[in-house]
Structure formats: structure tokens, C-alpha cells
């Protein structure tokens, strides 16, 4: 089943976006190739058991969601001096070769319908270059979406033995009648022995559908660590992925989500061990209230040549309401026996004994429940090294609990 939702998209629109960014010919060609490919592409994979797609992207009305020429956003992209934090246009002007080398090399633009749609239509983005040997903290990218649709591209390239911490936030601004669509692709090329920590906190309004795909390539001894927080949106389809391509490379993927009303979160964490001595740790915690629904997929794929692999995965979901639904599928795909791998997943409710204990000490049931929910996120918060980010996520959880 290929998607047929682009009746209102034209080559002229794509050329207009490209001209507006004063793009080189090769990038326009990439866009046009992606546009041409749309016809034959499927939606991204979702968890599927016979007879059931757990998230149905084909039902989304993209024709009305996508408004290619009226993208508007407020953007805030800053970092310390020794790092280059550039808009797409700036990056093309100053480092065209570097952008050309990496653009689309980690996420194939034609990987699925939504990556192709984004490649054809993206109008905003951030490029972060970290030179060899530089240690940088506090690169901040804030995107506030003010239009019906927004396509946002991020590229991070780190030099040898460098390190960088990047915090990204997505929110919605101006009121829009009806639903909207946010799409974000993130490509990270982590050079030898470099260390990237990439945190993302999504808190768009609940009329917004979001699709994000973040993928990093880790070179020898490189580390790519992700933090993925999802609080807002009506439907989120998010995947955070690392390919461990270099010997001794590592990745940690920490996820947190909190759904209420009829929110739907389809979140995935994936890691491919493709070299020797690689290590991965996947940790996700989610809370569901009201009629919210979560679909979690975690994949640990150990390749034939990935000798001496260590790979761990934990996923825990807390359900606060009878109407909520949690689906989980942690997958192990193991092709090399010299592996130590495990995964575990649990779903449960607030511990009644804890609740009883707290209420018997005079805490109101509501306050007790909130404390236990906040406590549930602590193991995930503990994994977040950046204080500001930890506080933000904590605040969002607390705010939701007070609603």
C-alpha cells in the first residue's frame, strides 16, 4: 500500500522553497528526486501483528495538513563560540561541501513516504559543526511552529575527540484552526572518539501530529547518547536510532513520555551493533492517563561481525487510567553469539501499597499519586546529565499532573 496524499504538491512549490533558501543545484535535485519518489513509497513501518497496524498513519489527511509555502516558525539556535551553530542557508554558504557530504547519508531521503515528503519540503533547519578536539556544552535549538505544517532538518557533525551537548525543543505558537503537522529529521555523524549528547523535548499543542526520525552514526570509540522526551501532540511517531559502526562505540537512548486525553505515542528506540566491542543501553519510561495510548518498539540488532557486544533494554509503562492502552514490543535480533543482551518490559499501575502508605501518613490520594508518578520518572531523569533539560522535563511532568 503506497500512500497517495500529495495531489496538491507540485515541482514549482519545491523550486520556490529551494530558491527562497538560495540553495545550490544539488540540493534542489535531492528535493526533486524525493518528490518524484513519493508515489512509490510506503509510510514508515509500524508495529504490526497479523491483522493489526498499531498506529495507522494512512488515515492522516496529509493533503490538508501540509501547507508547503506558508511555513512559519520562531527559531532560536545558539551555542558557544568554538562551535558553529548555523541555519541551513548559513551552512550552505559557509560549508557547502560538509553539508553535501552528510546530507541524506544517514537517513535515506527515500526511506519512507514521510522522509521523502520532508526532504522535498523542508524549509528550516540547523547545522552544528564541532571541530576536532573541542568540548562544547549548551548548544540550544528552540523551534516554535507558527504554521499549519513545518519541516525541520538538523545535521550534527563532530570532529575527532570532540564533545558536544545539544538541547532541542519543539513547541507551537500562533493559534491555527484545525490540525497541523510537524516533521523533523536529525542526522548525526559522530567522528572518531567524539561524544554527542542530543536531547529533545517535544511539547507541541494537542492538535499537532508529529513525525520525527533521529539517527546517529557512531565512529570508532564514539558515543552517541539520546534523550527523547514526548509530552505534547495528538499523535507522535518518533524513532531514535544509533548505528554503532566503529569498534568500541557506544549509545544510550533514554526516553520518557507522558500521555493524557486521547494522545497517541508511537515511540521506537533502535540500535544496530555493527562492529566489535560495542555497547548499548536503552531505557524508556512512560505514563498514560485518560484514554492515551502508547506503542513502544525497542530493537537491539546484533550483526554477524559484532563480536563481544553488550546490549541492554528496559521499558516500563505506568497506567493511571482504565481507558488507556499500552502496547510494547521489545525485540532482540541476534546474529553473533558472543553477545550479552537482555531486555525487559513491564506495565503496571501505581503501587496500591505505596499509595496506602502515603495516604495513611496524611498525604491526600491525589498528591500521593502525583508523587509516585514523579518518582516513576526519576530513573530516567537520573540518566540526563544536563540539569536544565532535567528540570524542564520534570516541570512538564509536574504541570501535567496538576491539570
Amino acid at each position, binding site marked *: 500500500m503506497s500512500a497517495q496524499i500529495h495531489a496538491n504538491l507540485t515541482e514549482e512549490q519545491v523550486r520556490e522553497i529551494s530558491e527562497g533558501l538560495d540553495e545550490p543545484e544539488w540540493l534542489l535535485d535531492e528535493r526533486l528526486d524525493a518528490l518524484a519518489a513519493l508515489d512509490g513509497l510506503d509510510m514508515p513501518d509500524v508495529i504490526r501483528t497479523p491483522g493489526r497496524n498499531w498506529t495507522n498513519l494512512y488515515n492522516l489527511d496529509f493533503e490538508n495538513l501540509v501547507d508547503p509555502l506558508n511555513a512559519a516558525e520562531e527559531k532560536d539556535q545558539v551555542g558557544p563560540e568554538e562551535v558553529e551553530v548555523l541555519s541551513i542557508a548559513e551552512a550552505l554558504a559557509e560549508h557547502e561541501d560538509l553539508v553535501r557530504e552528510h546530507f541524506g547519508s544517514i537517513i535515506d531521503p527515500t526511506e519512507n513516504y514521510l522522509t521523502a515528503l520532508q526532504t522535498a519540503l523542508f524549509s528550516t533547519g540547523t547545522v552544528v559543526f564541532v571541530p576536532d578536539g573541542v568540548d562544547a556544552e549548551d548548544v540550544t535549538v528552540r523551534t516554535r511552529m507558527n504554521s499549519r505544517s513545518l519541516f525541520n532538518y538538523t545535521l550534527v557533525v563532530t570532529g575527532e575527540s570532540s564533545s558536544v551537548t545539544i538541547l532541542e525543543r519543539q513547541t507551537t505558537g500562533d493559534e491555527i484552526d484545525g490540525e497541523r503537522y510537524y516533521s523533523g529529521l536529525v542526522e548525526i555523524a559522530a567522528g572518531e572518539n567524539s561524544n554527542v549528547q542530543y536531547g529533545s523535548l517535544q511539547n507541541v499543542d494537542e492538535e499537532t501530529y508529529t513525525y520525527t526520525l533521529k539517527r546517529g552514526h557512531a565512529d570508532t570509540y564514539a558515543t552517541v547518547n539520546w534523550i527523547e522526551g514526548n509530552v505534547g501532540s495528538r499523535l507522535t511517531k518518533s524513532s531514535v536510532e544509533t548505528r554503532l559502526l566503529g569498534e568500541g562505540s557506544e549509545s544510550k537512548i533514554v526516553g520518557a513520555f507522558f500521555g493524557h486525553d486521547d494522545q497517541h505515542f508511537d515511540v521506537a528506540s533502535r540500535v544496530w551493533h555493527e562492529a566489535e566491542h560495542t555497547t548499548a543501553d536503552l531505557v524508556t519510561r512512560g505514563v498514560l492517563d485518560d484514554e492515551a495510548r502508547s506503542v513502544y518498539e525497542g530493537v537491539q540488532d546484533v550483526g554477524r561481525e559484532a563480536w563481544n557486544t553488550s546490549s541492554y533494554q528496559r521499558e516500563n509503562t505506568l497506567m493511571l487510567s482504565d481507558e488507556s492502552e499500552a*502496547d510494547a*514490543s521489545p525485540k532482540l*535480533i541476534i546474529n553473533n553469539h558472543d553477545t550479552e543482551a537482555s531486555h525487559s518490559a513491564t506495565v503496571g499501575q501505581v503501587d496500591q501499597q505505596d499509595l496506602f502508605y502515603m495516604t495513611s501518613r496524611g498525604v491526600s490520594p491525589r498528591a500521593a499519586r502525583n508523587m509516585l508518578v514523579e518518582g516513576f520518572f526519576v530513573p530516567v531523569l537520573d540518566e540526563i546529565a544536563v540539569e536544565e533539560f532535567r528540570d524542564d522535563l520534570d516541570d512538564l511532568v509536574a504541570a501535567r499532573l496538576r491539570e
Partner: protein
Amino acid sequence: MSSDQDHLRETDSEKRFEFKKEQSSAFQAEKGELDEETIRLISEDKDEPEWMLERRLRALRQFHAMPMPTDWPGQPDLSEVDVEEIVPYIRPDVEMRGGVDDWNELPEEIKDTFDKLGIPEAEKNALSGVGAQYESEVVYQNMQERWEEKGVIFCNMDKAVQEHPEIVKEYFMTKCVPPSDNKFAALHGAIWSGGSFVYVPEDVTVEMPVQAYFRMNSEGMGQFEHTLIIAEENSEVHYIEGCSAPKYSKFNLHSGGVEVFVKENAHVQYSTVQNWSKNTYNLNTKRAICESEGTMEWISGSMGSKATMLYPSTILKGRGATDNHITIAFAGEGQNIDTGAKVYHNAPRTKSTIESKSISKDGGRTNYRGLVHISDGAENSSTSVECDALMFDNESTSDTMPYMEIEESKVDVAHEATVGKIGDEDVFYLQSRGLDDDDAKQMIVAGFIEPITEELPIEYAVELNRLIELEMEGSLG
């Protein structure tokens, strides 16, 4: 060590499982004719009532209308399975329709086959009753008198259609495994033959296991036995099936159907030791419906076959019902064992546990594919899933794909899986105590699968261990 164990040890593996017999049959349906006429011929040969023929024909239509399962992530390749190439039905040349109840009345070649498999031995020593199926028909069936006196019925399925039509009509592929369940269930519904019917009346406990053994002997045939077990309130029974087939160059298809009804407070254990030859596609559908306070237990060992797709499932329909799965899969060279468990928690206070172990070796591929579904309203239910995979070498593959669908908040759900290679330290330790490398590994594997073997009667536990030893020696073709 019991004499059975000695008996099994003394029997040469090749002789026990791989010997072939000259084909001789009384009736054989032509391959490549999976149409209404063939179904009518089979039904006529069995002298079936009209309603069963109607069910077969309806299932046949469903079979033709359904697509092959092709798009499951990582599923075994079924492209070689051409149902039109299968000989769907072979009635062996046995005088008495529905089989004989004296072992000595069997034709020499069939008797000899089962003697080699140790079936009469097992019966003499530990079983309440035994049935044996050769090709498409049950050739031998026996139930100890003391159970018959209590109203326990253990007969072959074709006989049950004739003698207990009211019960069969109510339960056969209606509520538990309808032909519409999947393509191979539909195929099964159309051309099923043989299998077991077990009926245990209220308040009766059958203390010794009942056993059936299935043997495929002919090249290019399919075996489609149907097993229907009904355990009335407060009853208890343990059913064991074993199966084997020699290896031929062409593929065989096994597509059985198992339906188990566990009534209030009843207890059914269903144990399988599957050792189909390595050209067999084993595409089975097994399901149980469990009423309140009932307990269903599935114990399975999957050793043989070229490819297996089998996910025994239980519907926990009544309050307080329990389901336990213990499965072990062993995949050697060229094998793809895709198996797991499915549990539907549809009532409050239901409980399930799944314990899955797999071993892969010499390029074999094991896959745990499981589904735990907790419906809205199944409050205070709990489930725990544990998967352990042991890998011997770098050519082998082991995947774990559990799915959890949770629609109820007052639940306790836990899944855990681990994969590891056989511990070099453990092997070294055992070697330092004088065991050679092979013996050390076998001992580690025996320890790894112990949770399964301890649930089985001794004959089966021994057989399972023996089969794994043979797999590890690479001496099973």
C-alpha cells in the same frame, strides 16, 4: 535409572527416527487436486455425515480465499510450500476402520515402526491410554478400562464424528479454532484426518497421561490430524503427543489443529515433543479456551522440522483462569523454528506465565514470537514472560519478538529476555573435571532446559534429552 531410559539409550537414533517404510496404502488422494471433488472423496471414504462434509467444503472455500502469511517480520520462508503438491490423504491398509485396539493386530510394518519408536513400551509403563496415527489415520487406540468405566472417552477423531456427533458438532472448529483463523487452519478444516478426541466428564481426574503418537511415513504427504479435548468441570487430564517422520528429499507439510476446552476449575496439560524430519513445514494451530478458575498448561519441545510456525494460544475467558506455557526450541543447520505463545486475558484475575528457552546451533534460527493481550476489564490480571536464548556459534540467529497489548490499568505485566553464548567458563570448569568438550556442552544444555524436562513424564523427558544430545552430535539428519 529406569529400564525405559536404558531402552531409549540403547536404541540407535537413526533406527529410531529415520527409518523409512515401503508405502502401502488402501486409499490415497491424488496430489494436486485440492478441490471439492477430493474433499468429497475423503469424506466419503470416511463415511462421514453430511454436516461434516459441509464444514469441510466451507473451510476449503475459505482456504482458497485467504492469502499465504508472507509479511510477518522475520518469518520463515514458505515459498516452497505448494499445497497443490501435497498428497492430502493416505489411508493405510488396516482392516479395522478406526484402528485396532490390540497392538498385535496391526500390520507388521506399522507395528514395527511404532515398536522402534518405543510406543508400546511407554504405554505399558506409564500411560492411561495411547493412540497411534500412521499417515492420515489412527491405527491403534487403547484406553485403560478403569478410565472408560468413569466415562472418559479417548478415541480417534473420525470415530468421534460417528459415535459422539452431538459433542463434535458443537465443538469442532466452531468456538476455538474456526477455519477462518488463518490459511492453514482453513486447509486443516478442509482435509483434516485422524487425531484424538478426549472427553473427561465432571469431577474425574485422569491420573496418568494419555498419549498419541503421529508418524508421517510417505514422501510428499501432508498430515492434518485434529485433536479435540474437552475437560468438564473439576476434571483433570494430561495429554501428550509425539511426532516424527523420516526425511525425504521433498517437503512434507504438517498442519494439525488442536482445540482444548477447559471448563470451570478443570485442569488440562498438553505436552508435545515434536521431532518432524527436516524437510517438514510444521504449520499448526493450537488453542485453548479456559473458563473460570480453570488451568491450561502447554509444554512444548520443538526439535525437528525445516520450518515451524506455531504459537499455542489460550483464551482466559473466565475469572481467575490460569495459563502456563513452557516451551523449548532447538534449531540446528537449515532449521527455522518460529514459535512462541499467545495469551488473551479476557476476564478479571486471570494469570499467565510464559517461559521460553531456545538453543541455536550451526546456522539454525530460533525466533520467539509472542503476544500477551490484556483486555479492558481484565483487572487484577498478571502475566510474566521470560525468554532465554542460548547460542552456540556465530552462524546462528536468535530473535525475540514479544508483543504486549495492554488495555487495562490494574495489571501486572512483565517481560524479560536474555541472550547469551554458552559460557566458556562453565565449559572450562566441566572440562577440568574430566568431561570432554561435547559432554560438557550437553550437560550445560541439559541444565538449561531442565524447567521443561521436569514437567514431563520420565519417558518424554528422556526422549527430549536424547533428542537434544543427538542434535548436538549432529547425528540426526
